[in-house]
């Protein structure tokens, strides 16, 4: 299964990474090689094997639904690139953006 430059551009947009033309060229070659490596798994017969998502036979863990201390607003905002003391400030959520 080969990975085209167009596929890589699509993945970059899903991953929210603005890759330059040079990045895309390089990344396409690198990902093709890595996908070649991981594709070795196709030779393993796993038809009767259930997926193992987690090493422990873990069950859901619950705690009592009681209020506990949490971060203050100031603590939550302390490393924010931009805020107004109450909220995180971000660029407009709606509307077109210019071409890169």
């Amino acid at each position, binding site marked *: 299964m080969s990975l085209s430059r167009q*596929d890589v*551009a699509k*993945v*970059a947009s*899903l*991953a*929210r*990474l*603005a*890759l*330059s*033309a*040079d*990045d*895309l060229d390089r*990344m396409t070659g*690198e*990902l093709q*090689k*890595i*996908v070649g*490596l*991981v594709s*070795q*798994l*196709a030779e*393993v017969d*796993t038809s009767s*094997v*259930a*997926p*193992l*998502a*987690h*090493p*422990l036979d*873990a069950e*859901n*863990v619950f*705690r009592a639904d009681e209020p506990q201390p949490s*971060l203050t607003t100031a*603590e*939550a905002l*302390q*490393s*924010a*690139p*931009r805020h107004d003391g109450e909220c*995180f400030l*971000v*660029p*407009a*959520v*709606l*509307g*077109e*953006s*210019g*071409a*890169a």
Partner: protein
Amino acid sequence: MQPLDLSAVDLVAAVRQGDVSAVQCTEAFLKRIEQVDGRVNAFLKVDREGALARAAAIDARRKAGGPLGPLAGLPVAVKDVLCTADMPTTCASRMLENFLPPYDAEVVRRLRAADAVIVGKTNMDEFAMGGSNENSAFATVHNPWDLTRAPGGSSGGSAACVAADMAPVAIGSDTGGSIRQPAALCGITGLKPTYGTVSRRGLIAFASSLDQIGPMARSAADCALVMETIAGHDAGDSTSLPHAVPRYTELLEQPLTGLRIGRVAAHFAEGLDPEVARGVEEAFAAFKAAGATIHEVELPHAKYGIPTYYLIAPCEASSNLARYDGAHYGHRAEPGKGHRAEPGKGHRAEPGTTFDSPLAEMYCRSRAEGFGPEVKRRIMLGTYALSAGYYDAYYAKALRVRRLIRQDYLDAFQQVDLIGGPTSATAAFALGEKSNDPLAMYLVDMYTVTANLAGIGGISFPCGFTKAGLPIGFQLQGPALAEPLLLRAADRYQRLTDWHLRRPKLPA
């Protein structure tokens, strides 16, 4: 009394008895850091004032007859992947260059509660992704045994600082070998505990079903001491095991009679450096001479460890690192100052790229600027493997092979108590040797990733040196929760050998 020469166990005893003060001890290591870290780059941040204030408070409490914690006065270096409320926590990434966490990681909280003195934050591969420490966005760590060589990774700063006597103990994290492989390359002892033994709260997540925190020190006995503080259930980590913490240090004293160690013939196949093979075989012989028996075992699916890992870890990483959005914390791209404007980089913008909104553009540019090349590669690979049409062929397939890998271990541990072998196929390699070849770098973890996939513990300790004077690492792996036995076996070996006591020549 020279604190640099003492084990962590002896240092803690010396402070408790008043043979050395916590301040003297802290000053000795801070001085050593000043003298040699300019050549090693093990630390991203040294908290001189904080450490000395902490040490003075411990000394004052001791003079007043107050209670002392089990690690009172012990200098500890902490990998910069663990949150510290009083020091920036960068993960060696531009993305988190200015990030000050609002709370301490649980491990850090426990260390402080035990009266350890945190001297600083150690360098690492960016977001713990790498096997040489060359993926740090800030500085390349140099191996104290040969400054032209890599210390291993991703906990390369933690390994190098212990090897160079800049701290008696460091904390690392291990997702595919990131404690054990640098421990091997730097000639120290590093324990990756069973998944769930040490709380991951406040550990910046890479691959959450694989990540585990552990101690790195000169000896297994020192690792055992630290484990008694950092292990144990934490209600703040839903994957934390509820088991009682064993008395790791006391359990070292139990005899090792009848220990059955497994040897995997495939570990000695092509790719293993002959000098490393010799060191590992000699360690087997030493265990045999000490009364252990050696048995051939097979791990038939271990050869699929690397491809399985390089699907599961990037998939989990692509999800975990989605949190870096330039909005809540971390790097934010300035409007109109995207990476295409970087001078001298020769970037061409991809023609026709548009963004759904100004917010989306900010996300995409912030992430492109904040993450380094290896982190981007793994996010891309994980996003691809999880995307529509590929999920079953890649991610789900890897999870099925993961079960086979774990089953191999469960079967092998029916026949033996522990499995031994090389930690790394080679001793420390040259800086730059693998940094332009992602695939070659991925293979450095070939002997270590399977323990993470199975969730079991492993320990690496030095078992000899190459002719060039580079340390060789021996790895023991055990069934889930076998840390007392792993530490005991490594400690027994270290009582019979002195490889772990050798120090690199790194003059002040």
